[in-house]
């Protein structure tokens, strides 16, 4: 394992410390329990709180700031944070208009946030993100996973909350964005959790995992690597089969790198994907390309499509000032 580490047990603490030191006017961090919040706390708005295992940076702490989250709780690498963190964060950032939890759909995240929601003495609601179409929704599983589409939910609900939307309105926008969003990814390599010290799964030099999760979980199938255009066909095929958009729909196209794939390839993917969307009569009117929801150093990428309406376009365009997203 070759990683920039001083001590395995202090990786998260030092990394969050660095994030906040690099953006001193924007962020502050508390430890025991751990959460990152805005340096200047907002007033008179619904407090948006998210969190999850570490290893997906910049998700979620990189999206704390004006126009997006109020606080983010980081767990150990790929392990859900705990309710005491969520309760402390909620108590610190709420401003009297309720707390909205934005939670990726994994058993651990779900249960910890549920317990926090039950224990929290403030009005609160939860938006569950489950945009990954690689895992079929069936009664035999926990259901679809929350992956790169989480950013779309956090950005758009963030804009609505900043504009004064109520807790119920924020929850309803979050659910609507989630329903309009679908993602699927491919991995070329595995990733190494620092505490484990070895790769999460084995994969051949000429193989890829189609439908991989953001923790290196298995997807739909293992295949030989093939040209980018054909990979995009597979991913968009599954995404559009799920979203069933009408011809002429406007969409947001997000190409997300998993941490180990260069921007050059991500833009190449954007080129292929935008062309195919247009060929299907869809109009990519908004875009986002980069490493936003990562799986440590995994090579690979995911595509996310959100079907936009006028309100969602406005929410996406609204100003945002966070460590990882700013316009």
């Amino acid at each position, binding site marked *: 394992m070759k990683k920039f580490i001083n001590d395995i047990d202090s990786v998260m603490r030092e990394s969050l410390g660095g994030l906040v030191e690099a953006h001193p006017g924007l962020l502050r961090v508390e430890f025991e*329990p751990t959460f990152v919040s805005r340096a200047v706390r907002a007033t008179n708005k619904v407090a948006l709180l998210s969190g999850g295992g570490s290893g997906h940076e910049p998700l979620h702490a990189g999206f704390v700031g004006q126009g997006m989250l109020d606080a983010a709780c980081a*767990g*150990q690498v*790929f*392990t*859900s*944070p*705990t*309710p*005491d*963190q969520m309760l402390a964060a909620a108590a610190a950032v709420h401003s009297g208009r309720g707390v909205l939890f934005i939670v990726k759909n*994994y*058993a*651990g995240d779900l*249960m*910890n946030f*549920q*317990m926090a929601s039950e224990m929290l003495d403030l009005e609160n609601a939860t938006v569950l993100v489950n945009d990954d179409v690689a*895992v079929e929704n069936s*009664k*035999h*599983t*926990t259901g679809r996973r929350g992956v790169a589409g989480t950013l779309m939910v956090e950005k758009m609900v963030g804009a609505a909350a900043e504009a004064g939307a109520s807790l119920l309105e924020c929850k309803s926008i979050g659910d609507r964005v989630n329903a309009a969003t679908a993602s699927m990814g491919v991995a070329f390599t595995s990733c190494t*959790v620092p*505490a*484990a010290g070895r790769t*999460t799964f084995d994969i051949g030099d000429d193989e890829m995992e189609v439908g991989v999760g953001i*923790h290196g*979980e*298995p997807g739909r199938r293992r295949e030989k690597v093939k040209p980018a255009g054909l990979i995009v066909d597979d991913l968009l095929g599954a995404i559009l089969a799920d979203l069933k958009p009408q011809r002429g729909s406007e969409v947001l196209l997000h190409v997300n790198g998993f941490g180990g794939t260069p921007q050059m390839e991500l833009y190449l993917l954007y080129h292929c994907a935008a062309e195919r969307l247009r060929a299907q009569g869809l109009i990519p009117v908004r875009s986002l390309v980069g490493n936003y929801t990562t799986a440590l150093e995994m090579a690979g990428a995911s595509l996310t499509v959100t079907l936009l309406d006028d309100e969602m376009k406005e929410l996406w365009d609204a100003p945002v000032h966070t460590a990882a997203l700013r316009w």
Partner: protein
Amino acid sequence: MNTPMILEAVAAVQRAILANEAQIESLDRAIGDGDHFINVRRGCEVAVSLSAELRDLPPALALHKIGMKLLGTIGGASGPLISSFFMAMGKELEGLAEPDRAEFAAAFASGVEAIKLRGKADVGEKTMLDVLIPVSRLLIRLVDDDAPLPELCAQLKEEANRNMLATRDMIASKGRASFLGERALGHIDPGCKTCEVAIGAVCDTVLPSKLSQEAA
């Protein structure tokens, strides 16, 4: 069962879990995501570290405090599940300084019920409930029948072991193993192994050492 006995049982569980590290880890690597043992070990460490602070508290409060501490320590899915177990047990024992067997059996059952509710799972889904639910039912029956302690413990250990082994032939419908579908067949559920080890350790603590050896 008073608080010092509960704390002794917790320490015994920790020793037993550590002694079974290799097997629990290899089961989790096969069908889990490889962090079960690390999480359980971390949980045992903090639960044991509370001993001095809890010794003089009534069982209800001691169990509640263990649950709250675990909730902030373990994380993942097992954190809320295991802490719900302790908190529900504590709630059931409120007002009792030294619960008798029937009261303890009822508390154990309500702890198991809390795991069931929190995890929205039941028997047959290849989770720790496949050991906990049958053991809890048997415990209530044996206490009702006034079974002698050595026999009670021997039967509970037997029941835990048999049900743990039976998960080998199950497809998981909850937890990380559920993503594997039929690939989970042939592997024992690591959470069941942990529960079997823990139940065995608790049984051994409540028996005087000589009887314990005979029962084993």
